[in-house]
């Protein structure tokens, strides 16, 4: 159904970007006039920028809700809304249209992005208060939301790619937001470069799909072509793997996950919005959206499942030894994304999307909570220097507790249902089910442990800082309100799918991923006994390991701290993330550097030489030609006559 006003959804954040950019320009101007380059954004523009930014996303959320209701009112098999702005480029067989389309899958994504996005914008008003780039920050954040919506809502793979690059750009800008700090600028660059590797794969995959399929980049066409078997198997596998490489980059899977922990250099709300709730899940969204295609491409889904499971376990082991509260959450994000890919890989598309949604709620909550803690501790991020914050920042504590329970998978919290759905589907899947389940369950145990550790080190025990020097204070209302809303969502999110009782999300998504699920998993065989058993095992793991982590670290934080300081043996490996960065430096960076030096030499002597020669020659020729331009009208008339004679003679000769 054609619904033109869908354009408002991405347009509103873009409008916010524009307005905030103008405000930023105004602030810069003021600063220049006052010759005070470091002054914070003045109160009025700051307040205005904050509310414009938040308002734009909130309005976009309202429109998204309206679109959702309109979609819901349609009969199940007609649930697609489209808005075609205009044909964009029509050249030969390439027909690209600016089309937004909303189906049940991206409607869900859209609601998460705008809803969680609006909350995080609101939170940022408090968190970024007094920053000198306040307006710029909101401009970037709005731009991000707009780009993310382009990514989600585009019907064409090219439009999706545009958004994909756009969110990458925003991520880069926001990680390096405090770019005066060299380390943070480096982190931004690392994120950008690692993502380029993935994007390279994405591009190749896209071209393969275009050439190999029906010559269309529309995702519904690709899915249809795949179901009809229009792709050859080898090409489909290759294209699928290339696309998955793109997803690995964006969604931080092995081997391209290395940028995400470093991305924590950005402001904490950015980590919450971009590097936990939305952008990093776009890889999962892409695979789910092209579900029919991936279901057809032989051998791709098992690869995805294995990579996902490996990442889930691997990142969890690292998370257990991190001292920086944001790093713990970052590795936890990598790990949880691994679960989602595991779900996709075994054909549990609904489970993956379910976990995506609940994860967006509770991980955003945890990040914002961590931000609140960091805010309260005056930018201290080392958990060994915290402790005893439970009574000092009660709202943050309580909401984070809920988030932690959801992350650990404590029964009745949202994370419990979504994670156990994935694990159950893994155990009943086709790809070595029990091995993958074991890896997943091991990851879950580690998750519960580091969650408990995080809570224990941050909130319990004695304060390991000087309360006189560090005045701990609860965050302002703009920051706590989003925490509370997200806490409610982290509990209520489970209602989207409670085993045996209700599964509204599965019904909702069925028109989009039902076919693909059927293709991968075959007919549904209810296995109630197994499901109940796995639920019980999952609950036991979550509660057991969470309480282990809580008690272990609560009892002896000092001992743990000295062990962490010395960092010997396994702990050293864990704390340094298995030295993967060093390994990459050795295996990838060093050869590249040597190659770079070599090619630089070639470049200087041959390429530059040639280019410079061309430049010099053209300048010289330019100077010669410029001499025609003597300035004398007589000379101009002379050239005129010369040209006239040539043309007349030419035309007369042509007719003879």
């Amino acid at each position, binding site marked *: 159904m054609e619904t033109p006003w869908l354009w408002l959804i991405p347009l509103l954040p873009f409008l916010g970007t524009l307005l905030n950019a103008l405000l930023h320009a105004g602030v810069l101007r003021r600063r220049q006039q006052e010759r005070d380059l470091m002054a914070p954004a003045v109160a009025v523009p700051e307040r205005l920028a904050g509310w414009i930014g938040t308002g734009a996303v909130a309005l976009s959320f309202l429109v998204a809700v309206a679109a959702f209701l309109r979609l819901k009112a349609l009969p199940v098999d007609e649930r697609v809304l489209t808005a075609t702005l205009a044909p964009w480029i029509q050249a030969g067989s390439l027909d690209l249209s600016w089309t937004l389309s909303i189906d049940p899958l991206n409607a869900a994504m859209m609601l998460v992005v705008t809803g969680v996005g609006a909350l995080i914008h609101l939170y940022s008003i408090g968190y970024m208060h007094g920053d000198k780039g306040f307006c710029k920050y909101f401009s970037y954040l709005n731009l991000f939301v707009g780009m993310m919506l382009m990514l989600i809502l585009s019907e064409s793979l090219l439009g999706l790619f545009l958004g994909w690059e756009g969110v990458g750009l925003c991520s880069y800008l926001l990680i390096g937001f405090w770019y005066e700090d060299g380390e943070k600028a480096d982190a931004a660059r690392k994120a950008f470069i690692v993502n380029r590797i993935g994007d390279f794969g994405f591009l190749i995959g896209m071209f393969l799909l275009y050439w190999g399929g029906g010559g269309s980049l529309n995702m519904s066409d690709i899915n249809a072509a795949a179901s009809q078997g229009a792709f050859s198997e080898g090409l489909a596998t290759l294209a699928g793997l290339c696309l998955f490489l793109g997803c690995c980059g964006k969604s931080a899977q092995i081997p391209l996950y290395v940028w995400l922990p470093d991305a924590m250099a950005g402001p904490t709300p950015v980590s919450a919005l971009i590097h936990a709730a939305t952008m990093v899940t776009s890889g999962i969204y892409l695979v789910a959206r092209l579900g029919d295609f991936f279901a057809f491409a032989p051998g791709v889904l098992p690869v995805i499942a294995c990579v996902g499971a490996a990442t889930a376990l691997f990142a969890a082991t690292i998370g257990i030894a991190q001292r920086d509260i944001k790093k713990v959450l970052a590795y936890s994000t990598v790990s949880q994304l691994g679960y989602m890919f595991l779900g996709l890989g075994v054909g549990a598309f609904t489970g993956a999307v379910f976990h995506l949604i609940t994860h967006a709620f509770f991980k955003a909550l945890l990040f914002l909570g961590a931000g609140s803690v960091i805010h309260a501790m005056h930018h201290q991020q080392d958990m060994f220097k915290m402790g005893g914050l439970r009574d000092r920042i009660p709202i943050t504590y309580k909401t984070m507790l809920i988030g932690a329970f959801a992350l650990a998978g404590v029964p009745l919290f949202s994370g419990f249902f979504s994670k156990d759905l994935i694990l159950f589907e893994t155990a009943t899947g086709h790809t070595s089910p029990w091995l993958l389940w074991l890896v997943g369950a091991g990851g879950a145990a580690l998750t519960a442990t580091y969650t408990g550790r995080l809570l224990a080190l941050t909130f319990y025990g004695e304060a390991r800082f000087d309360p006189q020097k560090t005045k701990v204070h609860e965050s302002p209302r703009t920051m706590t309100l989003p925490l509370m809303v997200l806490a409610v969502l982290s509990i209520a999110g489970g209602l989207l799918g409670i085993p045996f009782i209700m599964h509204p999300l599965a019904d909702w998504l069925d028109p989009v991923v039902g076919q693909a699920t059927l293709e991968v998993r075959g007919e549904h065989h209810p296995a109630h006994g197994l499901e109940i058993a796995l639920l019980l095992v999952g609950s036991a793991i979550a509660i057991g390991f969470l309480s282990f982590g809580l008690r272990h670290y609560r009892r002896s934080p000092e001992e743990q701290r000295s062990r962490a300081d010395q960092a010997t043996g396994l702990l050293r490996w864990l704390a340094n993330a298995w030295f993967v960065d060093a390994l990459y430096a050795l295996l990838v960076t060093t050869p590249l550097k040597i190659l770079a030096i070599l090619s630089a030499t070639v470049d200087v002597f041959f390429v530059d030489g040639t280019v410079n020669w061309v430049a010099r020659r053209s300048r010289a020729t330019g100077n010669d030609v410029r001499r025609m331009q003597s300035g004398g009208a*007589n000379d101009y008339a002379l050239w005129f006559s010369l040209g006239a004679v040539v043309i007349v*003679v030419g035309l007369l000769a042509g007719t003879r």
Partner: protein
Amino acid sequence: MATALFYLFGAGALFSAANVVFRRQAVPAAIWLVTCFFFLAGEFLLLGFPFLAAIQIMVYVGAIMVLFLFVIMLLDLQAHQPIQSQFRHSIGGALALVLVALAFVAASGGQALEAENQPAAPEISALVEALFTRYLLPFEVTSVVLVAAIVGALTLGRSPGGSDHPAKS
């Protein structure tokens, strides 16, 4: 008799035109142009277009030359200051000659000159009729062009600097 006059006027027109080109002072050159226009008017008369001849004198001698004199004034050429000429400018003249020669070749090569258009001298009423019906638009537009030319000439004719327009300040 008419034929002899025709060639005589033709020679006169050519001679005057040559003088326009070769005179080094601007004002005599302009006067020679006037002469040239008179000879051309004579040619029209002999060919049986008396109205065109009259128009030629009124419009060209009366109006166009005014514009030329404006240009000369704008250039501020003193009578005693001869126009400088350089060798490469004569290349331009040579090229123009080549063009004219080509025009002759083209005209003699084409048989169309005789065939297509040999109208009898039109009645003035017919001319007027054409002007007000078929050529109404160009006829009216001409007035716009003329007004534009007048405004332009007035603007350029004013002495630079100072303000002779007291109302605007």
